């Protein structure tokens, strides 16, 4: 079995790369095991929120030249990043995902704990503010589902009041189908509620209840559990509820992130790509500086060959990297990973401090070819969270690195 390109991983990076290549006429196979970071997405993309020294960035593209040479952005170069940044909104729109934001400057998203964090682009429905100094005037109602604990209304109230608004009330709504879920309290989670709320009679009923609760408040905050199947529901809620709606993120899993994942997967399959959901690459063959084939759990003894391979298998959480007491490993190809020998420097016992292990990753050359036992693998590309050279969580650059390296690898493959 032979493909032009085999992509390993089914997250943001793999999907962006695979859709680009498949649309350019390459025959692609994508193997996707397990969970990816989109399931935790805030509904926004970060390109660069902070420099490695901790200084906040307001114009991310303009700040790229301040990054070190091993940073993935530095390998791509400012000019290319600008070009890919321009193409990003249209790319996502073609997949049915509408983004908002000005690509040159950061916006601020509302976190589930009521604080503001920089971001670059956002889903159309997500609540963002143009600046940290944004003021909200008037009164606000915060609405939750009775018994839903993954939406912290007190934190949100405290955070939003700092923006000048006065939270007049926090109220619960009860809908029969959600009450039904509550019989098993562990089922009161974002996606369970979202699936109930996909039904027209339920979101209409919710809108009506919220409209009845309003006593002239200018704003109403509701949890982001609407529009899993169809984001138009968010627009219809705006029409039915006579106050400005701020959708606020919940604890994971993220409903908008999962929708994004489903739409990207659909775009890949519709473009003609083959997507193996729930399958895992278990082994690979590399010889004479080239990757030759892989084997997967479901396809058994068949060697699946390709001209190019893209490794987008994520970071520790996605099992793209594994650690033992002594070493950090990349399990599929056994690639060289950069990390310090002294294990004590891997982490900080202060959980909220900068964690060095989050910056570990596969080493690559300028074109994202990795090394195996010190020699480059010429037809293999490593993209997304698997890469070393940056601490995305600290910098707020996760989605940006995933998207930019995906576009870059696709372009190199297409030019070969």
């Amino acid at each position, binding site marked *: 079995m032979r493909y032009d390109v085999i992509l390993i991983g089914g997250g943001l990076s793999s999907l962006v790369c695979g859709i680009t290549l498949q649309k350019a006429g390459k025959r692609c196979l994508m193997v996707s095991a*397990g969970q990816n970071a989109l399931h935790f997405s805030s509904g926004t993309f970060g390109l660069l929120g902070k420099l490695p020294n901790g200084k906040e960035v307001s114009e991310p593209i303009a700040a790229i030249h301040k990054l070190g040479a091993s940073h993935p952005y530095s390998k791509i170069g400012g000019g290319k990043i600008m070009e890919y940044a321009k193409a990003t909104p249209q790319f996502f729109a073609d997949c049915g995902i509408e983004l908002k934001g000005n690509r040159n400057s950061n916006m601020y998203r509302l976190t589930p704990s009521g604080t503001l964090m920089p971001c670059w682009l956002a889903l159309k429905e997500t609540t963002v503010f143009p600046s940290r100094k944004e003021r909200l005037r008037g009164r606000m109602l915060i609405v939750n589902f009775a018994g839903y604990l993954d939406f912290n209304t007190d934190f949100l109230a405290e955070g939003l009041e700092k923006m000048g608004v006065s939270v007049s009330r926090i109220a619960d709504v009860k809908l029969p189908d959600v009450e039904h879920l509550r019989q098993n309290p562990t089922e009161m989670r974002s996606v*369970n509620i979202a699936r*109930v709320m996909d039904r027209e009679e339920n979101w209409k009923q919710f809108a009506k209840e919220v409209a009845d609760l309003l006593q002239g408040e200018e704003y109403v905050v509701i949890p982001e559990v609407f529009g899993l199947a169809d984001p138009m529901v968010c627009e219809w809620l705006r029409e039915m509820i006579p106050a400005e709606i701020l959708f606020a993120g919940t604890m994971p899993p993220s409903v908008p992130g999962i929708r994004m994942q489903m739409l990207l997967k659909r775009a890949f399959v519709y473009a003609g790509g083959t997507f193996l959901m*729930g399958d895992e690459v278990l082994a690979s063959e590399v010889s004479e500086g080239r990757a030759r084939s892989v084997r997967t759990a479901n396809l058994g003894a068949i060697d699946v060959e390709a001209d190019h391979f893209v490794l987008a298998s994520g970071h520790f959480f996605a099992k793209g990297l594994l650690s033992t007491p002594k070493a950090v490993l990349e399990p599929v190809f056994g690639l060289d990973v950069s990390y310090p020998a002294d294990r004590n420097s891997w982490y900080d016992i202060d959980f909220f401090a900068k964690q060095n292990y989050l910056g570990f990753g596969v080493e690559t050359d300028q074109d994202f070819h990795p090394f195996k036992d010190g020699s480059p693998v010429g037809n293999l590309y490593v993209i997304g969270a698997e890469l070393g050279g940056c601490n995305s969580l600290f910098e707020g650059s996760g989605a940006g690195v995933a998207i930019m390296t995906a576009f870059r690898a696709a372009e190199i493959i297409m030019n070969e």
Partner: protein
Amino acid sequence: MQQRNISFNNFEQCIKCTICTVYCPVVSVNPAFPGPKQAGPDGERLRLKNKFFFDENLKFCMNCKRCEVACPSGVKIADLIHSARRNYDKQFPELRDVVLANTDLMGKFARPVAPLVNSLISTKPAKVVMDVMLDIDRNRAFPKYQSRGFRGWFKKEARAAQDCYRNQLAYFHGCSTEYQHPEVGKAFVQVMNAVGWGVRLLKEKCCGVAMISNGLWSQVARNANHNIAEFRKAVSRGLPIVATASTCTLTMRDEYPHILGIDNADVRDHITLVEKFLFEKLDAGEIRLVFKNDYRARIVYHIPCHMEKLGWSIFTEELIRMIPGVSLTVLDSGCCGIAGTYGFKKENYASSQAIGKSVFDQINALSPDFVCCECETCKWQIEMSTAYKVFNPIVILAEALDLEATAAANQPR
């Protein structure tokens, strides 16, 4: 200290991420169903403490396995649910469920009077009777029974010719090929013969998937043991066991050990699906396919749930894409809602159609020449709910192949 913390059904691996819930087709249409996480790993924890926690509503699970495919931790959610039904549900199945579950017995009774049965079950009064007395939904279109089955045809028309092939395989045709769609079996024999493989039939019994759904536990165990014994005989004679139905294949490979606790380890890897079999032989250069020059078709491929679980749709895609003159679009995978006998039941009819809507809408929007699908119950559902015909990939291949030229190309040199 507990040394091993992973049980047979690995429910402890659940990280409570709720991803399974996103992909469960029943959750969005039936509020009474507790959902995969609660019905599976969460419920198991409680059931192990006390069987009192067994929830009747587990019966709403269609066993489509989409939750398992989506679960990042590899929890065998549907196996947990159906093992729980097997272990704790002491209710006796009702008459309707026994009737629906016995796909082979039903076929045996119906066949001698097939024309009569077909016209009877499609008449309004009969549908009302079935609806009222048996709770089989009156809106449901019934598949037609054939008066001459596949085995009868094989014995008369094909068996004698099989000895001349240098390679031999055992064919598991399944109930739908025998009773409703003998054309699938005929196509299988034609294609296999063309590529130089002779076909043997087994003394097979229904794989029993519908008995699992309907709780006929002792009956399905009998069938499973019978089939596995037959497979052992075939394997000892060096015959691979090849099937044309994805659900039978999954059931015999994985449900027998996982839900029924029947050990099939010695034969499991010899049970395969025709698309995988053909592809592997092609890939290894052992066989060749020659297609007609003038075959043209715009095909959409609906991946049945159990094909998704097997992870083998890639073989069908590859085979169909080999046909010159074919354009193939793969649907965004989703359940068609029939799930074997599930959609036949009156209480499920509405949710069954609601579940399938996304698949029907996609097919209607793409307006293909026809739909490709390995599962015959999906076929009934899609043909009833859209304006399009559905064909098993082997039927499509038989039609698109130049069988004579293929046979010539596969002559031993």
